């Protein structure tokens, strides 16, 4: 298992390097010179040339690439041209918000999606199954941007029961320990802040979860349908086991591998930042940060962000593969 993990991690290096190289080349070939945006509307040609040279952007692309790789090997992800801050520090500062939202959303989506998927499979073609199928499809199809705004208008503006945006209440902010608001509230014993943090998480979490529920539910349903037709399920029933035991312990456990894969992919995607949800709910995560970097031609930010997404995706795939082994004793690495 350890050997397999190390092998997979080594294999990830060329993948990440390839992605970063492509992003490096694309940014320099297709995006505008950031000096114009940095200097604002009073930019003069001389100032732009001076700043371009100062930033090292007038050097040949291969020289720039060499410098970039050298810095990367030294653990330096570069500095944001606009904020002047190290990209790694800024990305790590935003990761807790992204992870917290992703885990919250995937947790809700997984619980609801798996439960509904199992029920739909067991009650195949029943009215409940049909309603869930349509609702699931709607959940996947509804644009997150629209959904988020509708939820804000309904629950925050009209009913006034949830906050519109942000991550915490300014009057009730937990002390910073880890950057994870829920964790920080618990560690510092600030239960009022915990309640308010959960309130702030609810709308963005539900916005993401609604589309993920559909996907997880449909996968659960189809794999469960396949599993409950297997001989060993018939055997379990013939043994006189309770239906719940048959469904949960025998069918669901065996159907979990594809479901875990889907959940892993959903989580992997969300950990790279959910740009639309972060934008609508003013959620300070990595997705919005990287998109701002693209708009500003902030090379280091885009490179760093893409590298992070690549690393997270590779790691999530690895985690999912390793989970297979613990779920199914037949799989060994």
């Amino acid at each position, binding site marked *: 298992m350890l050997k397999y993990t190390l092998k997979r991690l080594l294999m990830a290096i060329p993948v990440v390097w390839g992605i970063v190289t492509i992003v490096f080349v694309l940014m320099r070939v297709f995006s505008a010179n950031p000096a114009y945006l940095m200097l604002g509307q009073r930019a003069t*040609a001389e100032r732009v040339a001076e700043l371009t040279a100062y930033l090292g952007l007038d050097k040949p692309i291969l020289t720039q690439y060499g410098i970039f790789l050298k810095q990367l090997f030294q653990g330096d992800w570069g500095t944001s041209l606009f*904020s002047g801050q190290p990209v790694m520090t*800024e990305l790590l500062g935003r990761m807790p*918000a992204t992870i917290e939202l992703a885990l919250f959303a995937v947790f809700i989506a997984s619980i609801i999606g798996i439960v509904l998927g199992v029920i739909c499979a067991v009650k195949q073609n029943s009215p409940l199954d049909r309603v869930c199928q349509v609702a699931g499809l709607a959940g996947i199809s509804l644009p997150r941007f629209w959904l988020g705004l509708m939820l*804000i208008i309904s629950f925050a503006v009209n009913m006034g029961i949830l906050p519109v*945006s942000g991550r915490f209440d300014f009057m009730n902010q937990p002390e910073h320990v880890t950057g994870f608001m829920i964790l920080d509230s618990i560690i510092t014993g600030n239960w009022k802040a915990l309640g308010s943090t959960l309130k702030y998480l609810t709308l963005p979490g539900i916005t993401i979860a609604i589309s993920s529920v559909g996907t997880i539910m449909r996968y659960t349903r189809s794999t469960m349908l396949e599993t409950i037709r297997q001989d060993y399920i018939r055997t379990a029933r013939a043994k006189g086991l309770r239906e719940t035991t048959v469904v949960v312990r025998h069918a669901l456990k065996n159907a979990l591998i594809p479901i875990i894969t889907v959940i892993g992919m959903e989580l992997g995607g969300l950990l790279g930042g959910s740009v639309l949800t*972060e*934008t609508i709910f003013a959620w300070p995560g990595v997705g919005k940060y990287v998109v701002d970097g693209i708009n500003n031609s902030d090379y280091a930010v885009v490179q760093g962000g893409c590298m992070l997404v690549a690393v997270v995706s590779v790691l999530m795939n690895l985690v999912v593969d390793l989970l297979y082994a613990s779920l199914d004793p037949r799989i060994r690495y």
Partner: protein
Amino acid sequence: MKKLLTALLACLMVLSCFAGASAEEAYNPDAILYLTCTNDPTHLDPALATDGQSTILTGSLYSALIGYNQDGTLFMDVAESYDVADDGVTYTFHIRDGIKFHDGTPCDAKAVEWNWNRVSPANATADMTYSSVLFGNVESFEATDDLTFVVKLKETDSTFLTLQGSNSLAAGLVSPTAYEADPEGFDRNPVGCGPYKFVKWEAGQYVQLERYDDYHGGKVENGGIILRVIPETSTAVSELMTGGIDIMDSIAMDQVELLEAADSVKIFTVPGNNLSLLSFADFDKNPLFSDIRLRQAVCYALDMDSINKALYGDKMDPGYSVLPTCMQAGDRIDEYTPIGYDTEKAKELMTEAGYPDGFECTLLTYNVTKGYNPAGEQLAVQIAAELEKVGIKVNIQILPWSEFVEKMYADPVEGYDMILHGWGADYNDSSNIISLWATSEVGGGLNHSGYTDPEFEEYYQSALHSPSYEEAGEFYFKAAQKLNEDVPSYCLGHCKSYIATSQSILNGEGLLGGWGNYAHYWMIKKAQ
């Protein structure tokens, strides 16, 4: 009877005292003002700040020798007075005694000298954009004693004092002690002597400032500012309606009506200090637009009243001249003779120029909304449709903002004939706008039309080197009128600014004046 009157008067006095007291108590002197912006500020060092979200904060953190009132006029800030010598180029500023930066460092003439040294063009780094704009005409400066600061200019300059009012830009005074202790970190931990001091910057979330009790400009009427980063304006509107933020500017067109209808929001309008422009790119070298008749034909063919009405409702003021009505010489609207809408005249001019059936040209534009054009690329579409009616076929080239900016500044101009752009004045002096056609800005600078008219340049230079701001006005008027005649660019209008506040803001009208960056938040009162 006399006793009765005395008793009545006494009652009235007592009642008036109570009335006064309740008005005073109606606001909370420690209330936090929640503001919003769509992106993180980029810099809190005033020498580096250029963008709107940064200058909201730098304008509140720093003071300069001179300051702007809400209407753009000047008041004495860190300097309590100044004298101008007979030579017209030597200014002596008398610094107020006792001013201290937020870290306790005295803000005296020595500190001012240190600041000017830091940002003067000789020492400025490449990213200090406003260094040459604010200090380019300064020959020397010196603190002759603790409270006297003497500046000598290279030549007389009507803009000098106005420029020194840019406390949110490079004119803002920073604490020498704090800066020298950590020059690299200063941008993230700024220290000035303005009405608010810095508390915290959580990237992507908010920047917090708190009241500076020893502010030399008077009592700060609230407890502090939190500038929240809310990227989506629809969300910001919802926050405003539910009390999550108190003050919002840069309101999108479609949200104005929504806010006007909301009971929980007050909305204020001011004339905009900006202009939307259609420029003929480097027209002297253009085979079509080097002929003034074709430039005029394009302008005559545009029914800007209808286009502006369709795109912006009543939000766009007509472009009588390039100068907005809130700026010097911009208010003489009856005296300007702008090109009006006359398609017959347009066709006549095209026929005279040898294009009776029209011609084809390319228009460069951008894909975002701007303060001077909240309709984004829709403006280009409307203009193309209007020109098509007289036979001018316009190919629109829409670029993302960063690419648009790079292409607009490129020298020589390649691949387009006209350009839709605009300008938001960054300080209240008409030179700020007139300079867009200065000869010195040709070729990679701000003069995208490549206009080099000697008469215009003379008016501009005369205005710049007038001994006073007031005397410069007449020259700015003539320069703006000359632009109407020569049409290197066509002014499409001046977009109004909208500011919305929650009902809890008691004196929101105090934010008006068209100078958002210089808003005096410290005067704003918020209800309990």
